[in-house]
């Protein structure tokens, strides 16, 4: 049990460019329906990866495998050299402290104020004192432009504001990797920009990001690498300029042209 935690010593000091997420031969199925058919992917520290593809191509499932929200049957996955072990609650808790996640539906805790939403996990998991946690939450809320909303309840905020709180909440755990699962899909069009600006600033500061997105122009602008998923496989992968202007496979061509309709 404890060997897994011991072999990977305190490891937040991985050099930039070193691999941080390593996925090998990952397969996942729901019953007889195989949704991920062997994924190999290495993400380097500081890299921004945009995952695109049709719905049902497995892109959200892949993202959710990385922090253990989905259980996979074959292959291996590690973050910061910490392997994902579903059976070990200890290992999962370790890993999830390194991986933050932001959801399409925000999933703020409706019974807690904005400030408490941000402070909850650091005080429970990282055993921060409440003064420390308050200071950190204020700083993070200021960073996402919501300093004055500390005592507001989530349902008093717009969708864009709620999503920015969710980003602050994820950052409070100081994750090494941030997963974004279609984080602007539930927003009114005029609110998308404020959320993407926050994500862009995170990318600029060197956060490792994996995002499933339908915002192609954003993927193009911010992404270092674009992954096109099709039928449970990484179908095409490359720098955004190449993937978007010079698609190699008919599936990607068809996908990109369908977006312009």
């Amino acid at each position, binding site marked *: 049990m404890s060997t897994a935690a011991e072999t990977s010593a305190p490891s937040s000091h991985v050099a930039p460019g070193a691999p941080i997420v390593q996925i090998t031969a990952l397969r996942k199925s729901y019953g007889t329906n195989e949704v991920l058919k062997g994924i190999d992917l290495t993400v380097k520290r500081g890299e921004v990866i945009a995952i695109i593809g049709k719905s049902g191509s497995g892109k959200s499932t892949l993202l959710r495998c990385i922090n253990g929200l989905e259980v996979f049957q074959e292959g291996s996955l590690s973050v910061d050299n910490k392997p994902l072990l579903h059976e070990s*609650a200890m290992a999962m808790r370790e890993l999830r402290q390194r991986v*933050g*996640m932001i*959801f399409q*539906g925000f999933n703020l*805790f409706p019974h807690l104020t904005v400030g408490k939403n941000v402070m*909850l996990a650091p005080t429970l998991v990282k055993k921060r004192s409440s003064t420390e946690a308050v200071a950190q939450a204020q700083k993070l809320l200021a960073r996402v432009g919501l300093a004055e909303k500390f005592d507001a309840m989530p349902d008093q905020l717009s969708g864009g504001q709620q999503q920015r709180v969710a980003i602050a909440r994820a950052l409070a755990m100081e994750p090494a990797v941030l997963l974004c699962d279609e984080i602007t899909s539930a927003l009114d069009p005029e609110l998308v920009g404020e959320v993407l600006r926050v994500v862009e600033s995170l990318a600029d500061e060197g956060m490792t990001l994996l995002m499933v997105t339908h915002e192609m122009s954003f993927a193009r602008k911010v992404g270092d690498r674009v992954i096109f998923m099709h039928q449970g496989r990484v179908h095409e992968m490359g720098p955004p300029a190449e993937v978007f202007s010079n698609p190699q496979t008919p599936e990607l061509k068809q996908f990109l042209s369908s977006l312009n309709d």
Partner: protein
Amino acid sequence: MNDFSLWDILRNLLMALRWTVALSLIAFVGGGVMGGLLLFLRMRAGKWLDRAIGTYVQLFQGTPLLMQLFLAYFGIALLGIEVSAWTAASVALTLYSSAYLTEIWRGCVASIPKGQWEASGSLALSFSEQMRHVILPQAVKIATAPTVGFLVQVVKGTALASVIGFVELTKAGSMISNATFKPFVVFSCVALLYFALCFPISLYAKHLERKINVDRR
């Protein structure tokens, strides 16, 4: 023979009302503790235990409380253990309440959106931290009104304990009616006393329900 005044009847019934209240409280508190325990087990344990508890719930919901009381009274005696009507009634009503309460609460916990589990889980909270800080605070709000509402069922359910000789309000009523030959007057008083007990609880449950609907807008 007929020198019972209305006050005498009422006074004797009020004395017996204490035992109805006591039995209700035992059943409700005991059922609550056990129901909570069952809920926790059901969420934590695997398929097998989940099914076993599901069967337990179905068993108690699918048989009359009267049968459960008979079985508790005569069944335990069959094992060679002497049980008083008190014990049998307490055991039967506690088991009965626990089955209903665990099912009510399970429904409330299940009604919390999956996203709350996922968000708190991906923040590295453990199961008990998720329950305590995220799921239960929301579930308790939803559960309060139906739980208080169920208390009314328990109070009325205690009337059945009269059949195994437990002297609570209903049993006292039939004893007094046998002595006074005024069954209508006596049982009217009995009914009024049950109503006086249950009506405020119902009102309170309604009030809680309204409050929650206002909170949720």
